[in-house]
């Protein structure tokens, strides 16, 4: 520990700490823009500048290490003037259309402008002029609103290791964009939306489906059905000032009913269904020398990543549709038949923590001739806006329960929303199916938590089976390399694109703090441990579904409706020069 002074107060800090963190540890707030926790500081935005005694210029506190006996001023007139000017410069090269902006009142630039009392246009001049990229089904890019903090670039390259966007050109002409400034739909982007979560402005945002959903709700001929992903119930509360990790399932159901949906179902139901199918597929592969290791397929971002980058390993991915697609498929076949509704008239809306799901629902193999499994996907953030639009005060809503039969679920389904959850749920059922016995402890601690790669080995009769959980797509490369080299020891691997799983999905409330994710995960595990039934094969409605419709997991009928296929989407080399 070393001694230093911040704003004339003597404090202690650890060596190597940045001035920013040292200040934070004693409750002194320094504004930041380009700073991202756990990633190397770039010192680009200069909003966090402070005065350090003996230094000629102001220094960026995010990148400046503390040293013994230093004296720091974080709020002098000189510092304030510098910060204000920087905000003024950023504002001046921004469309300033806050009133019609999707991030109105949730924008870091707006906050800073307010904080530093920017009240006039001091430096008027040319503004950058860029078209909005609406080419993708999931993500919209609006470079005119970009303040070039580079957080999206760093997340895309350093965390997700996808590298779909980067800085291009330089100086005043710099932009964050795709190669050759082409539409994001034909880039290597997997649409995970992690960039949206870190974007301080609305330069990156989801492509909204609110219009389609509103139209369906207004259409009297449509039978509107909504389903809620496991992770949404643990995060939506944050948008209403509830502490992170508050579970809001009951209020959420009421809210959706009040929006006018005919039925409110639970994606957790089909999560159980997914486990039945996936576990059966895994056992089948193990027993019949199938392609191993098998990957989970619940995460469409991961599937898209494989299709773009490693089409050779597509055969390793389970053919199961993702849970919400399964739910849609079941709704438009089994449920439609049962309720005697034309599947074309059923409009299925998924409330998802995810931006890729929007793209997934538009994939042609997930559509029948006249209808799609899922008609529209709304992110958690869009749902909040929808509630606002409908005048629904979320905090005042009474609680309600899901409709039957696609509303019943077990604890195993609830934890689908965290990294390691699918693995845990699958193992609970697979163990039972292979041995006829139940696992002694249901909480598989090795696959919980925020490690990048989590491993567990389970002995089943005389077989030692190895499992891995990839927490974030940025960690996938060595795993795939091992498979391609023939050195992989695993049998089954869960992959979640977003670090932490769906609780940290690209459609979730905009957040900055890491500890939120831990609390959200905890909430899901809490739901699980509160349940009477905690294994997917104990779900009564699923059992009935098999009895009445599919006969058994992986049956011909189940394959037709609940499974899908994947395509090589590697960007083809241009052949013409």
């Amino acid at each position, binding site marked *: 520990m070393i001694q230093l002074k911040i704003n004339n107060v003597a404090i202690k800090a650890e060596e190597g700490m940045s001035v920013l963190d040292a200040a934070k540890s004693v409750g002194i707030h320094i504004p930041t823009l380009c700073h991202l926790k756990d990633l190397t500081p*770039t010192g680009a935005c200069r909003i966090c500048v402070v005065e350090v005694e003996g230094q000629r210029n102001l220094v960026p506190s995010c990148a*400046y290490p503390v040293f013994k006996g230093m004296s720091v001023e974080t709020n002098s007139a000189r510092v304030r*003037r*510098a910060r204000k000017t920087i905000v003024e*410069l950023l504002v001046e090269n921004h469309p300033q259309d806050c009133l019609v902006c999707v991030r109105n009142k949730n924008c870091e630039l707006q906050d800073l402008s307010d904080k530093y009392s920017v009240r006039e246009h001091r*430096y008027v001049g040319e503004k950058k002029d860029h078209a909005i990229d609406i080419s993708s089904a999931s993500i919209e890019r609006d470079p005119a609103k970009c303040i070039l903090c580079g957080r999206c670039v760093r997340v895309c390259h350093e965390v997700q290791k996808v590298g779909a966007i980067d800085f291009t050109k330089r*100086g*005043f*002409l710099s932009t964050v964009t795709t190669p050759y400034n082409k539409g994001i739909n034909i880039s290597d982007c997997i649409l995970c939306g992690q960039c949206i979560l870190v974007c301080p402005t609305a330069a990156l945002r989801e492509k909204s489906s609110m219009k389609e959903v509103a139209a369906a709700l207004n259409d009297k001929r449509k039978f509107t059905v909504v389903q809620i992903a496991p992770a949404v119930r643990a995060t939506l509360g944050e948008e209403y000032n509830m502490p992170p990790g508050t579970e809001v399932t009951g209020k959420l159901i009421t809210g959706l009913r009040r929006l006018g949906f005919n039925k409110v179902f639970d994606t957790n139901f089909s999560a159980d269904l997914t486990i039945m199918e996936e576990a059966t597929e895994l056992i089948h592969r193990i027993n019949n020398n199938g392609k191993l290791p098998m990957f989970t397929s619940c995460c469409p971002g991961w599937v898209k990543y494989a299709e773009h980058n490693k089409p050779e390993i597509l055969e390793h991915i389970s053919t199961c549709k993702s849970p919400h697609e399964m739910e849609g498929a079941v709704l438009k076949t089994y449920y439609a038949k049962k309720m005697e509704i034309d599947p074309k008239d059923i409009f299925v809306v998924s409330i998802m923590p995810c931006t890729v799901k929007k793209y997934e629902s538009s994939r042609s193999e997930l559509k029948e001739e006249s209808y799609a499994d899922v008609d529209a996907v709304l992110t958690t953030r869009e749902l909040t806006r929808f509630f606002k639009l409908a005048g629904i005060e979320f905090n005042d809503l009474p609680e309600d329960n899901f409709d039957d039969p696609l509303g019943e679920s077990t604890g195993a389904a609830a934890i689908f929303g965290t990294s390691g959850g699918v693995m845990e749920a699958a193992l609970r059922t697979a163990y039972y199916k292979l041995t006829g016995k139940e696992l002694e402890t249901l909480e598989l601690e090795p696959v919980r938590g925020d490690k990048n790669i989590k491993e567990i080995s389970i002995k089943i009769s005389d077989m030692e089976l190895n499992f891995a959980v990839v927490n974030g797509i940025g960690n996938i490369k060595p795993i795939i390399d091992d498979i391609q080299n023939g050195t992989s020891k695993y049998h089954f691997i869960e992959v979640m694109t977003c670090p932490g799983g769906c609780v940290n999905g690209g459609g979730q409330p905009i957040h900055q703090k890491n500890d939120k994710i831990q609390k959200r995960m905890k909430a899901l595990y809490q739901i699980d441990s509160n349940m009477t039934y905690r294994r997917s094969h104990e779900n009564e409605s699923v059992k009935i579904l098999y009895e009445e419709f599919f006969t058994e997991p992986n049956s011909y009928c189940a394959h037709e409706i609940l499974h899908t296929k994947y395509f090589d989407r590697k960007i083809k080399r241009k052949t013409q020069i």
Partner: protein
Amino acid sequence: MNSFIEKCCNECWHTVEKPCELFIKCCTEGAQCHNNDSCKEKIKTYNKELKFEIHDLPVIFVGKGTCGLAAGAQKVEDAVNEELKRLNLKAIIEPTGCIGFCAREVIVDIKLPGKDRISYCEVTPKIVPKLIQKTLVEKEIYKEKLLGTFGEPSEEVPSIHNEPFFKHQLKIVLENCGVINPTSIDSYISNKGFRALIKVFSALRSEDVIREILESGLRGRGGAGFPTGKKWELAFNQKAEQKYLICNADEGDPGAFMDRSVLESDPFRVVEGMLIAAYAIGASKAYIYCRAEYPLAISRLQNTIDQCKKYGLLGNNILNSGFSLEIKIKKGAGAFVCGEETALIASIEGKRGMPKPRPPFPAISGLWGKPTVINNVETLANISSIILNGSKKFASIGTASSKGTKVFALSGNIKNAGLIEVPMGIKLEDVVFNIGGGIPNNKKFKAVQIGGPSGGCLPYSVMSTQVDYESLKNAGAMMGSGGFVVMDEETCMVDVAKFFLTFIQNESCGKCVPCREGTKRMLEIIERIPHSYKRTANKLDQLQRFKGIIHLKRLADVIRDTSLCGLGQSAPNPVLSGLRYFKEEYEEHLYERKCSSGVCKELLTFSIDNRVCTGCGVCLKKCSSGAIVGEKGQAHYIVEEKCIKCGMCVESCRFEAINVN
């Protein structure tokens, strides 16, 4: 003997694989390990031949630096060859680098056997026959283009060192430039080359070398002036398996060409400096980061490295010292900001050349995270003479805080444009008026711009300022890398500020906000100053113009205070120094809407004097905006609303009928 690597006899055993520490000594003093007079004689003779102390044929030296070539050196050489062939004469044609007197290029020196080397300037292919006739055939002096002799002066032939351009100079770095053949390692060795290196290898430890450099007071010549020895010491103290040395030859300052000249004219000196520096810090890998715009410098460097490798002066176990060094050339791809150390490192690593916050400093964590020392070309070119002649001698030149000499690239509105090396502490007026010869065409001196885009313009009133890091900074300019652009009365200071801001704006990497956005706004404020009333005659525009001026200083201060790297931090300098010394000129533009230098075209009005105009129609054809009307043979008119004030009509009119006010 044709080259030093040729063995004098079988007893000499130096090879690249089995190096001999006495090799260089052998080359200059004769064989060391065995006593054989014929060997000694052989080497002695070869040395004399290399220095052209003995030769049978006349030697014709042609200055073939980039500026010489641009002025037509190759054509001159071709003409010389042709003329020799025609006259059936034989001569040795020896390429040299640039002696620095670029204004008088092409420079050709002629040395007849047993006579002194005599220099001629402004040689063109046209006068080559006359030159050859007079000198080689008649063995006389060609007086018309005589510059001077390298030897003893006579009444007829003055000494070249007496020429005002050279008289006030003190050449350490440029010692060999334009004198020796830059493509021959033998030529360098026979001119005291690699002596410093063997002194280091034989007697000095790393610490000793660093102490020597520290005591010499040498400061980085790239701009900031950080003590070189301190930088080395910092890197030396790092414990690391791999360290790097980088020679920064990314000379991006518009108006500066010192590094290019040194690399083209004396590349071996730079490599020797690098060897010593790498030895001192313990680096085994080095890079030369050179602008791709300098193809000649790059090819000469490559040639230098190849020859050094052949002689065992680069590679493993150099001269049996146990020290190894590998040098690679990296071609810059055109980004001014890559002159900044961290940006340069990013560029070598294959990234966008964007600076990183410091600390950590490159000397602690640089290329690939390893300790890295980055020195400028001129800094490294100083090393060998410091080691060879001692730090005391070096420290005796210059002022208290700035030691040694500084190379400047003299250009702009000055008679003797070229490359000069002056002792620190010389006064600016001496440089401009004595060495530079003053302003051509009887125009008045207005300002000198020192330090490149980050420097400042100094007026006549501060011409007695000394050339040293601190004095220049206090005067509002900076040492920079050595650009020295002289401006006469027809230069508009508002326009100059605009020019530099445009440059910086174009070269800003765009990473940090103050530089990316701030310099753009500053440029816009400056651009609004000469905006003409007529075209944008709305009140808002005028309001904006004054508002911008009011906030200009504040913006400049914040940019200087908060930018990430030196480029941004010094970006406001051209404007600030302009406001400091040339405030009246800004005010004239603002309040009187006038540019008395006649540069800011928007403030000018063009009209045709109908008494003089013959109606020839040339200007009408030239006018790109269709602002000139008139029948052939009748006086023409300029439609003011359409005129974009490009001035093309003035340039094209043969009758001086167009008035500019």
